[in-house]
């Protein structure tokens, strides 16, 4: 592996600028003449807009423009869309209601943008925003998806009768019913997957600049996928054609999915820049982040899991209601369908699976993918019901899982996915060893002496990452292909730039991708630079989400490296007067195998650009591009074991041990992988214990709209994690990698809840398991 190559624990190159305050984020960007935008937002969850009067605001000091949805429509800017078509089981397409970047006649959630003020300063814009007079006629609101489906519920969109966006299914309902009817035991549960607010450290921001001379737009934005943003704004929103729109996503301070989507604010900053003639910057404050960043999760599910007499699973039936909020966000439709139901087989042989999903409009912030996206919801359903079944059957949760593991690969599940490789027993065994599972009863007894209730819980998760084979997702309704692109540019003196369509907003690509290149040629890490996040620099790209940058993004780099290496070998063979097949490139030089004839790497590069002595007919230069389209998803999997102690007097839960054994395939940088697992676990534990997103059911106000009420995980809430990895290399991509960014958030919530319910002896406990809820559950079971 070398000290800097693939597999080395290299400290992140990018951290120096981040921890010394030298990162450059959208809010750091300054364009001459730049002015500031503040959005006027709906204070109501559901209301008709009767009148918008901007006259008083226009007269305020420093105001350059006050713009509304009517002007937006006049200029032909299109509605926001959801880019993944899902058909209901009756064959009808999903019912998408219109979403204008600035509301014109109706608002459907608190915080929805209605008008924008552009002024000399942020303060002036804020003052003027308060002077925009909007006459609302408040309407009844509904925030709960189950209630939104009920007869007589407030109706949000004329397009979606009964607020139902789609009623979708996968698998054969009758076959599953039959399997459950014949089962020796069926475990049934109702589970809620709580809504989460993403809370990236950097709030969303946009700076739109229209250059009249060139009739060209530039957008600096907090995006995980600048090329996708450009495509969507060009093809669907009619902001500008792609060749007239440059999108730059510079340093981005965390996304977790919430920065995949194109939001109204980016569109408006670009449009307002043209309308007002000045560059327009908007930076969300934290309240806006709470109210308008796409939320995650929010499922209500009924599940039945059947077993035969030998405790083998015979069938799984799942019925889910997914809350989509007031509008359909960009990828919302795919999350509770193809990113959720297709993972319901978990690590188990389940002969029959049926899942029905109803997606529902409510008067809440739109919901879309959030770290894990569908897979945490699937894992929660399956791992809660499997653990519960073990308790009901009176068998060890570990052994019940072991008995039902998939052991032969490739394995075709009944829900589309074809698992390529895995060894679930290996991660289960590794986790049980690390956790000293067998010693738990002794620890429980010891805790009891201290007055604490100790519990243990596990979760064996699987996820589909490396999103995604374009043809496959296209056949399932995706509006885009999900390949990745890379260009490897060897400079004349041998330094290397890699231009990648992946986008790093915390993942550490500047280090890991450089390690891949350094490994190939044996050049020092500092001679490799990673260029990303700018549509003018990087040829094409689909961005970073779904743990795809290693499996898809780095694979594109490998393909480009293959081409570079092939050409470099031809040049070296020519210069060393050897046969091309005898040339090897390693340790920063090209050499003729079995001889002492060598050529430094930089001389190979120089020769390519001086072009004084190249093989006959060869083009000068050493720069190659590649697109990589995966042939399958990748399937990271693992086993998490949580041990908790509950204070019986207060209901407070302390996680006293957390073991993670993950199979991510080959690993490029173990240090970064551990960091990703730690971050994912913090988010998963946040969901399980702390993060409760609460809407007032009548007014539709987001009650938890600040850190005074929304509990973010703090370091003190988390134990020192014991993380390790097992490895079955992914056969589907050249590096054998699977992806590690989401696993922690996917696998940990059920492990925590399984542990708490084990401790308190009451299985009726929902997330987040706050002290009050745990206390109430203990009280109820007394």
């Amino acid at each position, binding site marked *: 592996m070398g000290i800097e190559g693939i597999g080395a624990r290299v400290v992140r190159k990018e951290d120096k600028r981040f921890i010394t305050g030298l990162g450059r984020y959208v809010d750091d960007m300054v364009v001459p003449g730049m002015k500031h935008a503040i959005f006027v937002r709906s204070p109501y969850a559901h209301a008709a807009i009767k009148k918008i009067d901007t006259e008083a605001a226009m007269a*305020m000091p420093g105001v350059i423009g006050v713009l509304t949805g009517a002007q937006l429509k006049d200029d032909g800017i299109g509605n926001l869309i959801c880019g993944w078509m899902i058909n209901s089981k009756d064959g009808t397409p999903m019912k998408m209601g219109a979403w204008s970047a600035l509301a014109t006649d109706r608002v459907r959630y608190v915080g929805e943008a209605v008008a924008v003020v552009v002024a000399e300063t942020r*303060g002036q814009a*804020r*003052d003027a925003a*308060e002077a925009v007079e909007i006459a609302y006629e408040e309407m009844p609101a509904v925030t709960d998806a189950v209630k939104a489906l009920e007869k007589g519920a407030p109706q949000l969109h004329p397009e979606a009768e009964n607020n139902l966006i789609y009623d979708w299914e996968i698998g054969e309902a009758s076959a599953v019913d039959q399997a459950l009817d014949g089962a020796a035991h069926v475990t049934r549960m109702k589970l809620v997957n709580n809504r989460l607010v993403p809370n990236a450290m950097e709030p969303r921001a946009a700076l739109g600049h229209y250059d009249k001379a060139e009739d060209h737009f530039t957008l600096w934005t907090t995006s995980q996928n600048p090329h996708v943003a450009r495509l969507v704004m060009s093809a669907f929103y009619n902001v500008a054609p792609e060749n007239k729109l440059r999108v730059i996503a510079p340093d981005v301070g965390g996304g977790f999915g919430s920065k995949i989507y194109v939001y109204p604010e980016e569109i408006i900053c670009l449009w307002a820049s043209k309308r007002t003639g000045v560059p327009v910057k908007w930076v969300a404050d934290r*309240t806006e982040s709470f109210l308008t960043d796409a939320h995650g999760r929010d499922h209500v599910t009924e599940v039945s899991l059947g077993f035969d007499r030998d405790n083998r699973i015979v069938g799984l039936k799942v019925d889910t209601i997914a809350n989509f909020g007031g509008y359909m966000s960009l990828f919302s439709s795919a999350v509770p369908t193809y990113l959720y139901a297709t993972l319901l087989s978990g690590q188990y042989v389940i002969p029959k699976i049926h899942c029905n999903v109803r997606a529902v409009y409510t008067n809440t912030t739109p919901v879309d993918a959030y770290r894990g996206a569908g897979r945490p919801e699937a894992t929660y359903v399956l791992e809660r019901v499997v653990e519960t079944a073990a308790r009901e059957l009176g068998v060890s949760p570990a052994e019940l899982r072991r008995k039902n593991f998939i052991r032969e690969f490739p394995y075709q599940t009944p829900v589309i996915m074809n698992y390529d490789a895995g060894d679930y027993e290996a991660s289960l065994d590794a986790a049980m060893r690390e956790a000293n599972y067998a010693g738990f009863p002794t620890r429980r007894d010891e805790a009891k002496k201290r007055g604490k209730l100790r519990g243990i819980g596990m979760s064996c998760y699987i996820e589909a990452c490396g999103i995604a084979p374009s043809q496959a997702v296209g056949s399932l309704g995706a509006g885009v292909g999900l390949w990745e692109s890379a260009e490897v540019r060897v400079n004349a003196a041998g330094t290397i730039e890699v231009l990648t369509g992946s986008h790093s907003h915390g993942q550490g690509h500047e280090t890991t991708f450089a390690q891949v290149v350094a490994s190939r040629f044996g050049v020092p890490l500092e001679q490799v630079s990673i260029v990303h996040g700018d549509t003018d620099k990087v040829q094409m790209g689909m961005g970073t989400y779904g743990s795809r940058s290693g499996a898809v993004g780095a694979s594109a780099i490998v393909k480009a490296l293959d081409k570079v290496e092939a050409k470099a070998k031809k040049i070296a063979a020519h210069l060393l007067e050897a046969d091309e097949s005898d040339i090897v490139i390693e340790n920063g030089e090209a050499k003729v195998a079995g001889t002492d004839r060598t050529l430094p790497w930089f001389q190979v590069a120089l020769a390519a650009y001086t072009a004084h002595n190249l093989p006959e007919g060869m083009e000068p230069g050493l720069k190659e591009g590649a697109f990589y389209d995966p042939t399958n998803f990748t399937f990271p999997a693992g086993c998490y074991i949580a041990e908790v102690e509950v204070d019986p*007097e*207060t*209901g*407070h839960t302390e996680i006293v041990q957390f073991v993670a054994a993950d199979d991510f395939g080959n690993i490029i940088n173990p240090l970064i992988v551990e960091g990703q697992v730690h971050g994912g676990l913090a988010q998963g534990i946040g969901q399980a214990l*702390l993060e*409760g997103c*609460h809407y007032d059911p009548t007014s539709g106000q987001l*009650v*938890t709209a600040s*850190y*005074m*009420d*929304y*509990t*973010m995980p703090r370091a003190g809430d988390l134990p020192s994690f014991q993380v390790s990895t097992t490895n079955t290399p992914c056969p589907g991509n050249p590096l054998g990698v699977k992806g590690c960014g989401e696993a922690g958030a996917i696998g940990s919530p059920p492990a925590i809840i399984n542990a708490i319910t084990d401790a308190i002896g009451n299985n009726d406990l929902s997330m987040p398991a*706050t*002290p*009050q809820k745990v*206390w*109430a559950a203990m009280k109820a079971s007394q």
Partner: protein
Amino acid sequence: MHQTTYHRASSLSEAVKLLNDADDGKYVAGGQTLIPTMKQRLAAPSDLVDLRHIADLKGIEISGDKVKIGAAATHAEVAEDKALAKACPAISHLATHIGDPHVRHMGTIGGSIANNDPAADYPAALLALNATVHTNKREISADDFFVDLFETALEDDEIITAVSFTLPEKAGYAKFPNPASRYALTGVFVAKRADGVRAAVTGAGENGVFRADPIEQALASSFDASALDGITIPADSLMTDIHASAEYRANLVAVMAKRAVQAANG
């Protein structure tokens, strides 16, 4: 539209004059509540008169069994005062657990009790310690000072100068923090003297800080946590919000009282 003029007063009389001269002025100390409120545009005073730099409001004095803490003493100063930690560790412990280091280095004891947030820590201490609130006009007993949620006996231009109390035999404070804000979801301060026990509860009462009679009575005969075994606290005048029901708070009052007594007994 939301311009504010900041004044730094160097004496009490100057502070009073600055406020009286202002259109719609407000005193500010650490600003830990007022400044966020202004940022959210829920308050827009024309003038802010900063009290933190008035020499008369500074300092922590202990003489004999009397303790006097200047109103402008920050939580960090109270937490770190070695003599106070020896004389009354419970109040040092309380100050150590207010907010985070940033809050503790800005927020003041005077500001905290003047704001009388129903989940703040100091009101419980003052009420249990039977403290006296000194102002530029008079002395007010803690019993009379805390009136209702965010409401005190203070007049508009009245400035808290100090709080004082006589050292108890024993005192202890235990709080169960709100998981999000880390304010007290319920906090109980107990103080034992020869003439009895006072137990004050913050974070739980519908009308702010209050004395818990059942706890005081139970502890009067035996100042031991076991004296509170099986005690039930009525939930009827306790708060219910998204973080805790009145029933849960009632339970926490009893549990925190026990832990406060344990802390007091060391």
